[in-house]
């Protein structure tokens, strides 16, 4: 038996850990990219804020998207609920309430990770300490996933972890493509041409996909192929298609999955319908906007089917009393 509330905590725990990991990775990649680009090119840090979807909030609190401001905003600014520290804190809170259900070692690791991140956030924001800090966040998240996968029964509870993780990944992949890809694709100036491929490489790196791309795609890094890989590859774990397939396999094992499966089907159709040739160009943004909508609908359906069980009845009872 799995309580709705436990399923919800586990789902969000996985999403928040994944979010912290993804944020750490895009910071790391941007850092490297900037070192490679000529000084005359202003790539800057603003895209990272855009990727996390918090541009408005950022502008409310900061005048300029300087390196310092953006890093602070993404790592430790408590006003940003998606910053690394907050994501980990929320993951930890979600895990606290389900401690009795997940393996003890998982709690210890997340606890350690949170303690490390809050103790070292200052050095993590500095240029010197940044690499070690982000690396640690990523490694610990992976350690957590490993402990979960190898010490916990792959039962219903585990399915909710997997769903959370893959929902978050699908979301992140499309966001990275949106922000990074859109401004890369249309009209690449002659000046930038030599740097075209390293920018696409950074898109892949942001999703830990460069090496696998090289192994499986067999062409040099090119926009079109990168897009196809990140959206439609069936075996790369951060490709959107793969993430949705994972969510589907979880849903198929659960009862009352009709409406989430319907929403999932929508998302899969949106994804498979898209011809990469067509979206290179303006079509990409339209496609990604459409995908964000179906993705969030899927999240709502999962919430309604599993996390809000009996809520309607409870409200009716309360109203009649």
């Amino acid at each position, binding site marked *: 038996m799995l309580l709705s509330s436990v399923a919800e905590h586990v789902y969000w725990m996985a999403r928040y850990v994944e979010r912290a990991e993804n944020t750490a990775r895009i910071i790391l990649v941007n850092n490297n990219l900037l070192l490679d680009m000529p000084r005359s090119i202003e790539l800057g840090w603003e895209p990272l804020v855009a990727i996390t979807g918090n541009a408005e909030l950022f502008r409310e609190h900061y005048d300029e998207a300087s390196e310092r401001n953006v890093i602070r905003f993404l790592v430790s600014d408590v006003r940003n609920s998606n910053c690394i520290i907050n994501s980990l804190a929320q993951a930890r809170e979600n895990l606290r309430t389900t401690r009795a259900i997940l393996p003890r070692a998982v709690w*210890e690791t997340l606890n350690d990770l949170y303690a490390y991140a809050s103790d070292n956030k200052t050095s993590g924001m500095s240029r010197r300490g940044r690499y070690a800090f982000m690396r640690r966040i990523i490694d610990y998240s992976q350690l957590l996933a490993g402990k979960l996968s190898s010490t916990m029964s792959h039962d219903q509870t585990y399915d909710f972890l997997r769903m959370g993780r893959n929902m978050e990944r699908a979301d992140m992949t499309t966001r990275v493509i949106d922000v990074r890809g859109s401004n890369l694709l249309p009209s690449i100036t002659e000046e930038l041409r030599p740097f075209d491929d390293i920018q696409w490489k950074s898109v892949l790196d942001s999703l830990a996909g460069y090496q696998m791309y090289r192994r499986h795609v067999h062409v040099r890094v090119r926009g079109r192929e990168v897009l196809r890989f990140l959206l439609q590859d069936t075996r790369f774990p951060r490709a959107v298609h793969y993430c949705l397939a994972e969510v589907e396999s979880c849903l198929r094992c659960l009862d009352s999955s009709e409406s989430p499966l319907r929403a999932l089907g929508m998302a899969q159709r949106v994804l498979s319908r898209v011809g990469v040739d067509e979206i290179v160009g303006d079509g990409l943004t339209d496609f990604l906007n459409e995908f964000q909508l179906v993705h969030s609908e899927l999240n709502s359906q999962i919430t309604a089917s599993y996390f809000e*069980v009996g809520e309607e009845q409870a409200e009716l009872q309360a109203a009649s009393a």
Partner: protein
Amino acid sequence: MTIQWKEYADANTWDELITPKGNARIAARGAVRYLGGLSDADLRERRDAAELAMRVMGITFTVYSEEGGIDRTWPFDIIPRIISAREWQQTDAGLKQRVRALNMFIADVYSERRIVKDGIFPRELFRHSVNFREQCMGMRPAFDVWANICGSDLVRDNDGTLYVLEDNLRVPSGVSYMLENRLVMKRVFPELFENYSILPIDGYPTRLFDMLASLSPRPADYPTIVVLTPGIYNSAYFEHSYLAQQMGVELATGRDLVVLEDDCVYLRTVGGLERVDVIYRRVDDLFLDPEAFRPDSKLGVRGLMRAWRKGNVGIANAPGAGVADDKVVYAFVPDMISYYLGEEAILPNVPTYLCTDKKQRGYVLANLDKLVVKPANESGGYGMMVGPAASKKEHQRFAELIKKDPRNYIAQPTLSLSTTPTLCDGAVEPRHVDLRPFILSGESSHVTRGGLTRVALRKGSLVVNSSQGGGSKDTWIVDTGDM
């Protein structure tokens, strides 16, 4: 330097392990001899190992702070408190007798009130009982048992007599620490267990499960049982989650449960709504059901009392059981035992002066500097005054409080509380202890072998509460073969 038991001995207080002459009490002989052979470094090493084990096992209690709850490691002392099985047999019988009488009293309170009609218990005392629940009148829980889980605090005076200090009948906590303390001891001090026959305690979760299962309104099926917790910010959350885990039942908050039109309780699960048979609630009465009690409660379940009254769900402890968890009611327990059971109390009460009684109140007011004054309905050591340690001003303040609200105060002589050897800053010194055994009652009753020994870690202190500088010890009931 190793322990010098001769120097340790103190003629003025009763020590649990050591006689005033510095010899080991019979049951403690083996342990005392072994400990005496350890160097300070050995002891420190064991203590560090125990601390580490506690942390790794995640044995914590929650302390409130500005950033929310913080998990603290439970302070633990590695020297066990040892009691002979022969003495424990008496205590066991005394506790069962006491809880039986208390349960009969609660049942009587919510039905005929024979004890009032027969002039044993004064009617007016109910009027101001904070824990009496009108909503429970006429209710008859399974086996007529209201307090299914009781934690009674025992203290030992100078002369070695074990007294009952209070009975916790609402949501007593501490049993998880009792269980975990034993595990830690086995890990860090295995040699100490050699040559001893120590009665095992690890059957408690099974006993608790069986008792809860026996309260199910659908006895034919495997029951769905939940532990109802106020949530992660409750100081005993660790215990709630621990017990749920050990019993293999669900840990739920009020939000996980819903009562439907059929007046049955359901659990909200990902597979739909699941009927609940028994609730081991660790939420206070007044927060249980916003429909019946405090309407602003976010911790409870709307309609729970309806479901319980209709017999569709078992609740332990029964709502309203706290009526006997009152220091004024406590004073009457020996009378209850003779009234309901026709027996003499096996375990004595601490002499208690009721401030409602004019003569007794007079005595209390004249002797405030010698007595401990306690509010009738507080727990955790809050709101009390220890006369000999308090200032004149405090005495004055309590005199006023007592005159204003006599029903809310009782007074007791200051007990010295026994000590037991405790490792403090590298040396073994006497520290004061109490003992909380747990009594399970359903169709039959069961007393834990020993209980949770709480120790006041500050020198001379009599306050053992974890929130106020207390720690705990493993408690051994030792069979010395002389029974």
